[in-house]
Protein backbone atom coordinates (compact mmCIF):
# COMPACT_ATOMS: atom_id res chain seq x y z
CA UNK A 1 0.00 0.00 0.00
CA UNK A 2 1.96 3.03 -1.17
CA UNK A 3 2.32 6.04 1.14
CA UNK A 4 -0.24 4.78 3.67
CA UNK A 5 1.73 6.12 6.65
CA UNK A 6 1.99 9.57 5.09
CA UNK A 7 -1.72 9.52 4.24
CA UNK A 8 -2.72 8.48 7.76
CA UNK A 9 -0.34 10.93 9.42
CA UNK A 10 -1.81 13.86 7.49
CA UNK A 11 -5.41 12.74 8.04
CA UNK A 12 -4.73 12.13 11.73
CA UNK A 13 -3.29 15.60 12.20
CA UNK A 14 -6.06 17.30 10.23
CA UNK A 15 -9.01 15.47 11.81
CA UNK A 16 -7.28 15.12 15.21
CA UNK A 17 -9.04 11.81 15.72
CA UNK A 18 -7.87 8.33 14.82
CA UNK A 19 -11.24 6.87 13.83
CA UNK A 20 -12.11 9.79 11.58
CA UNK A 21 -8.62 9.69 10.11
CA UNK A 22 -9.05 6.01 9.21
CA UNK A 23 -12.39 6.70 7.50
CA UNK A 24 -10.86 9.58 5.58
CA UNK A 25 -7.83 7.55 4.48
CA UNK A 26 -9.95 4.68 3.22
CA UNK A 27 -12.16 7.08 1.29
CA UNK A 28 -9.08 8.86 -0.10
CA UNK A 29 -7.57 5.59 -1.36
CA UNK A 30 -10.79 4.66 -3.10
CA UNK A 31 -10.79 8.07 -4.79
CA UNK A 32 -7.11 7.68 -5.66
CA UNK A 33 -7.84 4.39 -7.41
CA UNK A 34 -10.69 5.86 -9.36
CA UNK A 35 -8.53 8.71 -10.62
CA UNK A 36 -5.49 6.63 -11.27
CA UNK A 37 -4.82 8.41 -14.56
CA UNK A 38 -3.65 11.36 -12.50
CA UNK A 39 -0.89 9.27 -10.98
CA UNK A 40 2.62 10.28 -11.96
CA UNK A 41 5.48 8.09 -10.93
CA UNK A 42 7.82 9.85 -8.56
CA UNK A 43 5.28 12.44 -7.51
CA UNK A 44 3.05 9.78 -6.00
CA UNK A 45 3.21 10.92 -2.41
CA UNK A 46 2.33 14.58 -3.05
CA UNK A 47 -0.42 13.48 -5.42
CA UNK A 48 -1.90 11.11 -2.87
CA UNK A 49 -1.62 13.68 -0.08
CA UNK A 50 -3.54 16.12 -2.27
CA UNK A 51 -6.39 13.63 -2.37
CA UNK A 52 -6.14 12.89 1.36
CA UNK A 53 -6.24 16.58 2.16
CA UNK A 54 -9.21 17.13 -0.12
CA UNK A 55 -11.03 14.22 1.48
CA UNK A 56 -10.24 15.61 4.95
CA UNK A 57 -11.70 18.96 4.00
CA UNK A 58 -14.86 17.40 2.57
CA UNK A 59 -15.24 15.38 5.75
CA UNK A 60 -14.60 18.35 8.05
CA UNK A 61 -16.95 20.64 6.12
CA UNK A 62 -19.67 18.04 6.52
CA UNK A 63 -19.03 17.05 10.13
CA UNK A 64 -17.19 19.93 11.81
CA UNK A 65 -17.64 22.99 9.58
CA UNK A 66 -16.53 25.39 12.31
CA UNK A 67 -13.01 23.96 12.27
CA UNK A 68 -12.38 24.60 8.61
CA UNK A 69 -12.25 28.36 8.96
CA UNK A 70 -11.61 28.68 12.70
CA UNK A 71 -8.83 31.07 13.54
CA UNK A 72 -7.47 30.98 10.03
CA UNK A 73 -6.85 34.12 8.04
CA UNK A 74 -3.77 34.69 5.92
CA UNK A 75 -3.95 38.43 6.50
CA UNK A 76 -5.06 38.76 10.12
CA UNK A 77 -2.48 39.19 12.88
CA UNK A 78 -1.57 35.98 14.68
CA UNK A 79 -4.02 35.20 17.46
CA UNK A 80 -4.90 32.27 19.66
CA UNK A 81 -5.55 28.93 18.03
CA UNK A 82 -8.53 26.64 18.43
CA UNK A 83 -8.81 24.56 21.59
CA UNK A 84 -6.65 21.69 22.67
CA UNK A 85 -7.01 18.19 21.41
CA UNK A 86 -8.43 15.88 24.08
CA UNK A 87 -7.95 12.88 21.83
CA UNK A 88 -4.26 13.60 21.60
CA UNK A 89 -3.97 13.91 25.37
CA UNK A 90 -5.80 10.62 25.88
CA UNK A 91 -3.63 8.85 23.34
CA UNK A 92 -0.45 10.13 24.94
CA UNK A 93 -1.63 9.59 28.52
CA UNK A 94 -2.35 5.93 27.89
CA UNK A 95 1.32 5.23 27.41
CA UNK A 96 3.23 4.66 30.69
CA UNK A 97 6.37 6.16 29.17
CA UNK A 98 4.46 9.40 28.63
CA UNK A 99 4.57 9.92 32.39
CA UNK A 100 8.29 10.52 32.17
CA UNK A 101 9.10 14.15 32.67
CA UNK A 102 10.92 14.42 29.39
CA UNK A 103 7.76 13.56 27.53
CA UNK A 104 5.84 16.42 29.07
CA UNK A 105 7.61 18.76 26.67
CA UNK A 106 6.74 16.52 23.83
CA UNK A 107 3.09 16.36 24.79
CA UNK A 108 2.79 20.10 25.12
CA UNK A 109 4.41 20.66 21.74
CA UNK A 110 2.06 18.16 20.13
CA UNK A 111 -0.94 19.80 21.75
CA UNK A 112 0.19 23.19 20.54
CA UNK A 113 0.51 21.90 16.97
CA UNK A 114 -2.91 20.24 17.19
CA UNK A 115 -4.35 23.54 18.40
CA UNK A 116 -3.15 25.45 15.33
CA UNK A 117 -5.86 26.53 12.89
CA UNK A 118 -6.29 23.97 10.12
CA UNK A 119 -4.72 26.06 7.34
CA UNK A 120 -1.54 26.59 9.34
CA UNK A 121 -1.44 23.09 10.79
CA UNK A 122 -1.49 21.42 7.38
CA UNK A 123 1.49 23.31 5.94
CA UNK A 124 3.48 22.68 9.10
CA UNK A 125 2.77 18.93 9.04
CA UNK A 126 3.54 18.67 5.32
CA UNK A 127 6.81 20.53 5.79
CA UNK A 128 8.15 19.25 9.10
CA UNK A 129 6.79 15.71 9.22
CA UNK A 130 6.38 14.81 5.56
CA UNK A 131 9.40 16.84 4.45
CA UNK A 132 7.65 18.11 1.34
CA UNK A 133 9.20 20.97 -0.62
CA UNK A 134 7.38 24.31 -0.85
CA UNK A 135 6.53 23.45 -4.43
CA UNK A 136 4.96 20.15 -3.44
CA UNK A 137 3.07 21.76 -0.54
CA UNK A 138 1.82 24.45 -2.94
CA UNK A 139 0.43 21.68 -5.12
CA UNK A 140 -1.16 19.77 -2.27
CA UNK A 141 -2.76 22.84 -0.68
CA UNK A 142 -3.39 24.59 -4.01
CA UNK A 143 -1.86 27.97 -3.17
CA UNK A 144 1.15 29.84 -4.60
CA UNK A 145 4.62 28.92 -3.30
CA UNK A 146 4.93 32.36 -1.67
CA UNK A 147 1.79 31.69 0.35
CA UNK A 148 3.27 28.40 1.55
CA UNK A 149 6.25 30.29 2.96
CA UNK A 150 4.14 32.98 4.65
CA UNK A 151 1.77 30.38 6.12
CA UNK A 152 4.70 28.41 7.50
CA UNK A 153 6.04 31.63 8.99
CA UNK A 154 2.66 32.27 10.62
CA UNK A 155 2.31 28.69 11.82
CA UNK A 156 5.70 28.78 13.51
CA UNK A 157 5.01 32.19 14.98
CA UNK A 158 1.72 30.94 16.45
CA UNK A 159 3.52 27.97 17.95
CA UNK A 160 6.19 30.11 19.52
CA UNK A 161 3.50 32.35 21.00
CA UNK A 162 1.38 29.50 22.31
CA UNK A 163 1.03 29.92 26.05
CA UNK A 164 1.84 26.37 27.23
CA UNK A 165 4.96 26.28 25.10
CA UNK A 166 6.09 29.61 26.50
CA UNK A 167 5.45 28.36 30.00
CA UNK A 168 7.68 25.35 29.52
CA UNK A 169 11.17 26.34 30.46
CA UNK A 170 12.96 23.25 29.21
CA UNK A 171 12.11 23.51 25.57
CA UNK A 172 14.34 25.98 23.77
CA UNK A 173 11.60 26.72 21.27
CA UNK A 174 9.46 28.08 24.09
CA UNK A 175 11.58 31.18 24.46
CA UNK A 176 9.93 34.16 22.86
CA UNK A 177 11.89 37.31 23.39
CA UNK A 178 9.73 40.15 22.24
Amino acid at each position, binding site marked *: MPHLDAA*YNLARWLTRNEHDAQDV*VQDAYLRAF*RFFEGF*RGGEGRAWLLTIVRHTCYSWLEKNRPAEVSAGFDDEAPAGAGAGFDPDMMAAEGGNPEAIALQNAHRRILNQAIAALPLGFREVLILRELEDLSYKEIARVVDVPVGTVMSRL*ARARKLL*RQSAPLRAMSGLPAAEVKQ
Partner: protein
Amino acid sequence: MNCRDAVDLVHGYIDGELDLVKCLEIEQHLGACPACKVQFDQVRELGSGIRSHAVYHAAPPALRARVAAALPRESGSDARAWGWRGTAAALALATLLGLGFGLALLQPGTEDRLAREVVAGHVRSLMADHLMDIASSDQHTVKPWIAGKLDFSPPVMDLAAQGYPLAGGRLDYLDGRSVMALVYRRHGHVINLFVWTQAPEADSGVRSDSRQGYNVAHFTQAGMAFWAVSDLNPEEFKAFVGLVRDQVASAR
Protein backbone atom coordinates in the same frame (compact mmCIF):
# COMPACT_ATOMS: atom_id res chain seq x y z
CA MET B 1 16.95 43.63 2.62
CA ASN B 2 15.01 45.03 5.55
CA CYS B 3 13.57 43.24 8.61
CA ARG B 4 10.08 43.26 7.12
CA ASP B 5 11.23 41.20 4.13
CA ALA B 6 13.38 39.00 6.32
CA VAL B 7 10.51 37.88 8.59
CA ASP B 8 9.14 35.39 6.05
CA LEU B 9 12.32 34.80 4.07
CA VAL B 10 14.06 33.44 7.17
CA HIS B 11 11.67 30.49 6.88
CA GLY B 12 12.47 29.89 3.23
CA TYR B 13 16.15 30.12 4.14
CA ILE B 14 15.86 27.57 6.96
CA ASP B 15 13.82 25.26 4.75
CA GLY B 16 16.45 25.45 2.00
CA GLU B 17 13.97 26.94 -0.44
CA LEU B 18 15.67 30.19 -1.42
CA ASP B 19 17.72 30.73 -4.54
CA LEU B 20 21.36 31.64 -4.24
CA VAL B 21 20.82 35.39 -4.53
CA LYS B 22 18.17 35.50 -1.80
CA CYS B 23 20.33 33.21 0.37
CA LEU B 24 23.22 35.62 0.18
CA GLU B 25 20.94 38.59 0.91
CA ILE B 26 19.43 36.99 4.00
CA GLU B 27 22.81 35.80 5.26
CA GLN B 28 24.05 39.37 4.93
CA HIS B 29 21.01 40.69 6.78
CA LEU B 30 21.29 38.12 9.59
CA GLY B 31 24.92 39.07 10.02
CA ALA B 32 23.99 42.72 10.44
CA CYS B 33 20.71 42.51 12.38
CA PRO B 34 20.83 40.94 15.86
CA ALA B 35 17.01 41.02 16.25
CA CYS B 36 16.45 38.97 13.09
CA LYS B 37 19.30 36.65 14.07
CA VAL B 38 17.48 35.88 17.34
CA GLN B 39 14.31 35.15 15.37
CA PHE B 40 16.26 32.95 13.01
CA ASP B 41 17.80 30.93 15.86
CA GLN B 42 14.41 30.47 17.51
CA VAL B 43 12.71 29.35 14.32
CA ARG B 44 15.49 26.89 13.65
CA GLU B 45 15.31 25.46 17.17
CA LEU B 46 11.54 25.20 16.93
CA GLY B 47 11.92 23.29 13.67
CA SER B 48 14.30 20.73 15.13
CA GLY B 49 12.02 20.48 18.19
CA ILE B 50 9.04 19.70 15.98
CA ARG B 51 10.92 17.17 13.87
CA SER B 52 12.19 15.31 16.91
CA HIS B 53 9.14 15.58 19.17
CA ALA B 54 6.01 15.84 17.04
CA VAL B 55 4.18 12.54 16.71
CA TYR B 56 4.34 10.88 13.33
CA HIS B 57 1.13 8.90 13.18
CA ALA B 58 1.99 5.71 11.33
CA ALA B 59 -0.97 3.87 9.86
CA PRO B 60 -2.35 1.22 12.24
CA PRO B 61 -2.11 -2.34 10.85
CA ALA B 62 -5.90 -2.60 10.95
CA LEU B 63 -6.18 0.34 8.56
CA ARG B 64 -3.76 -1.26 6.13
CA ALA B 65 -5.89 -4.40 6.10
CA ARG B 66 -9.10 -2.40 5.85
CA VAL B 67 -7.95 -0.32 2.87
CA ALA B 68 -6.52 -3.39 1.15
CA ALA B 69 -9.84 -5.18 1.60
CA ALA B 70 -11.85 -2.24 0.30
CA LEU B 71 -9.82 -1.60 -2.83
CA PRO B 72 -10.33 -4.75 -4.93
CA ARG B 73 -14.09 -4.68 -4.31
CA GLU B 74 -14.18 -1.11 -5.48
CA SER B 75 -12.01 -1.52 -8.55
CA GLY B 76 -12.84 -5.10 -9.57
CA SER B 77 -10.74 -6.23 -12.47
CA ASP B 78 -10.36 -2.65 -13.65
CA ALA B 79 -7.20 -2.44 -15.70
CA ARG B 80 -6.27 0.85 -14.10
CA ALA B 81 -5.92 -0.85 -10.73
CA TRP B 82 -3.25 -2.95 -12.34
CA GLY B 83 -1.08 0.08 -12.74
CA TRP B 84 -0.65 0.38 -9.04
CA ARG B 85 -0.44 -3.28 -8.22
CA GLY B 86 1.72 -3.70 -11.28
CA THR B 87 4.17 -1.19 -9.94
CA ALA B 88 4.46 -3.12 -6.68
CA ALA B 89 4.80 -6.38 -8.61
CA ALA B 90 7.41 -4.86 -10.90
CA LEU B 91 9.40 -3.63 -7.91
CA ALA B 92 9.24 -7.06 -6.30
CA LEU B 93 10.28 -8.64 -9.57
CA ALA B 94 13.10 -6.15 -10.00
CA THR B 95 14.31 -6.98 -6.51
CA LEU B 96 14.18 -10.70 -7.25
CA LEU B 97 15.96 -10.21 -10.54
CA GLY B 98 18.53 -7.99 -8.86
CA LEU B 99 19.15 -10.67 -6.24
CA GLY B 100 19.37 -13.44 -8.81
CA PHE B 101 21.64 -11.34 -10.92
CA GLY B 102 23.99 -10.68 -8.02
CA LEU B 103 24.04 -14.34 -7.01
CA ALA B 104 24.62 -15.62 -10.50
CA LEU B 105 27.59 -13.37 -11.06
CA LEU B 106 28.92 -13.37 -7.50
CA GLN B 107 31.49 -10.77 -8.49
CA PRO B 108 29.79 -8.55 -11.00
CA GLY B 109 32.07 -6.34 -13.04
CA THR B 110 32.52 -2.73 -12.09
CA GLU B 111 30.36 -1.60 -14.96
CA ASP B 112 27.46 -3.85 -13.97
CA ARG B 113 27.67 -2.77 -10.40
CA LEU B 114 27.78 0.90 -11.36
CA ALA B 115 24.85 0.52 -13.74
CA ARG B 116 22.83 -1.01 -10.95
CA GLU B 117 23.85 1.73 -8.53
CA VAL B 118 22.98 4.38 -11.08
CA VAL B 119 19.52 2.91 -11.70
CA ALA B 120 19.00 2.54 -7.95
CA GLY B 121 20.09 6.16 -7.48
CA HIS B 122 17.62 7.27 -10.14
CA VAL B 123 14.72 5.29 -8.65
CA ARG B 124 15.62 6.47 -5.15
CA SER B 125 15.65 10.10 -6.29
CA LEU B 126 12.12 9.69 -7.63
CA MET B 127 10.70 7.62 -4.79
CA ALA B 128 12.14 9.44 -1.85
CA ASP B 129 10.97 12.84 -3.06
CA HIS B 130 14.55 13.91 -3.03
CA LEU B 131 15.10 14.74 -6.64
CA MET B 132 16.84 18.04 -6.10
CA ASP B 133 18.84 19.87 -3.47
CA ILE B 134 18.83 22.96 -5.60
CA ALA B 135 16.00 23.61 -8.02
CA SER B 136 17.08 25.94 -10.76
CA SER B 137 17.10 26.00 -14.53
CA ASP B 138 20.09 28.33 -14.49
CA GLN B 139 23.46 26.65 -14.87
CA HIS B 140 25.10 29.68 -13.25
CA THR B 141 23.10 29.02 -10.08
CA VAL B 142 23.54 25.26 -10.02
CA LYS B 143 27.25 25.18 -10.79
CA PRO B 144 28.49 27.33 -7.87
CA TRP B 145 26.14 25.53 -5.48
CA ILE B 146 27.52 22.15 -6.51
CA ALA B 147 31.11 23.31 -6.72
CA GLY B 148 31.05 24.44 -3.10
CA LYS B 149 30.17 20.92 -1.99
CA LEU B 150 32.45 18.71 -4.06
CA ASP B 151 36.18 18.53 -4.48
CA PHE B 152 35.91 18.94 -8.23
CA SER B 153 34.22 21.45 -10.48
CA PRO B 154 31.80 19.56 -12.66
CA PRO B 155 30.44 20.88 -15.93
CA VAL B 156 26.83 22.01 -15.85
CA MET B 157 25.37 21.98 -19.34
CA ASP B 158 22.48 24.17 -20.41
CA LEU B 159 20.47 22.10 -22.88
CA ALA B 160 17.19 24.01 -22.72
CA ALA B 161 17.56 25.18 -26.31
CA GLN B 162 17.75 21.56 -27.42
CA GLY B 163 14.61 20.67 -25.48
CA TYR B 164 16.21 19.23 -22.34
CA PRO B 165 15.81 21.96 -19.71
CA LEU B 166 17.94 21.75 -16.60
CA ALA B 167 15.73 21.31 -13.53
CA GLY B 168 18.34 21.36 -10.79
CA GLY B 169 21.02 19.38 -9.07
CA ARG B 170 21.75 17.44 -5.96
CA LEU B 171 24.54 15.59 -4.25
CA ASP B 172 24.33 11.84 -4.39
CA TYR B 173 26.43 8.93 -3.25
CA LEU B 174 27.61 6.32 -5.74
CA ASP B 175 30.47 3.89 -5.85
CA GLY B 176 31.58 4.96 -2.38
CA ARG B 177 31.96 8.66 -3.12
CA SER B 178 30.02 11.91 -3.36
CA VAL B 179 28.93 12.60 -6.89
CA MET B 180 26.98 15.30 -8.64
CA ALA B 181 23.56 14.49 -10.00
CA LEU B 182 22.18 16.94 -12.54
CA VAL B 183 18.47 16.68 -13.18
CA TYR B 184 17.07 17.37 -16.62
CA ARG B 185 13.52 17.10 -17.84
CA ARG B 186 12.05 16.09 -21.15
CA HIS B 187 8.27 16.02 -21.61
CA GLY B 188 7.67 15.18 -17.97
CA HIS B 189 10.38 12.51 -17.89
CA VAL B 190 13.24 12.95 -15.50
CA ILE B 191 16.83 12.38 -16.56
CA ASN B 192 19.48 11.98 -13.88
CA LEU B 193 23.01 12.71 -15.05
CA PHE B 194 25.62 11.54 -12.55
CA VAL B 195 29.11 12.98 -12.84
CA TRP B 196 32.27 12.22 -10.90
CA THR B 197 36.03 12.39 -11.37
CA GLN B 198 37.98 9.36 -12.44
CA ALA B 199 41.59 8.41 -12.64
CA PRO B 200 42.77 9.83 -15.96
CA GLU B 201 42.20 7.32 -18.69
CA ALA B 202 41.40 7.43 -22.34
CA ASP B 203 38.04 8.91 -23.26
CA SER B 204 35.55 6.17 -23.93
CA GLY B 205 32.71 6.03 -26.38
CA VAL B 206 29.10 5.95 -25.24
CA ARG B 207 27.96 2.58 -23.92
CA SER B 208 24.27 2.05 -23.49
CA ASP B 209 22.19 -0.49 -21.72
CA SER B 210 18.66 -0.90 -20.53
CA ARG B 211 17.83 -2.11 -17.04
CA GLN B 212 14.56 -2.53 -15.21
CA GLY B 213 12.84 -0.44 -17.84
CA TYR B 214 15.34 2.39 -17.59
CA ASN B 215 17.80 3.44 -20.24
CA VAL B 216 21.33 3.80 -18.97
CA ALA B 217 24.29 5.24 -20.86
CA HIS B 218 27.77 6.20 -19.82
CA PHE B 219 31.02 7.53 -21.15
CA THR B 220 34.28 8.88 -19.84
CA GLN B 221 35.64 12.20 -20.97
CA ALA B 222 38.02 14.83 -19.62
CA GLY B 223 38.83 12.68 -16.59
CA MET B 224 35.21 12.48 -15.58
CA ALA B 225 32.68 9.69 -15.68
CA PHE B 226 29.21 10.54 -16.96
CA TRP B 227 26.26 8.24 -16.30
CA ALA B 228 22.80 9.14 -17.55
CA VAL B 229 19.62 7.28 -16.63
CA SER B 230 15.98 7.86 -17.50
CA ASP B 231 12.71 6.25 -18.50
CA LEU B 232 12.73 8.50 -21.58
CA ASN B 233 12.37 6.72 -24.93
CA PRO B 234 15.66 5.36 -26.34
CA GLU B 235 15.85 7.81 -29.29
CA GLU B 236 15.50 10.98 -27.25
CA PHE B 237 17.67 9.55 -24.49
CA LYS B 238 20.42 8.80 -26.98
CA ALA B 239 20.13 12.32 -28.39
CA PHE B 240 20.46 13.73 -24.87
CA VAL B 241 23.60 11.72 -24.14
CA GLY B 242 25.08 12.84 -27.47
CA LEU B 243 24.40 16.48 -26.60
CA VAL B 244 26.06 16.14 -23.21
CA ARG B 245 29.11 14.52 -24.75
CA ASP B 246 29.42 17.22 -27.43
CA GLN B 247 29.12 19.99 -24.83
CA VAL B 248 31.75 18.42 -22.58
CA ALA B 249 34.06 17.98 -25.55
CA SER B 250 33.62 21.54 -26.76
CA ALA B 251 34.20 22.93 -23.27
CA ARG B 252 37.68 21.46 -23.03
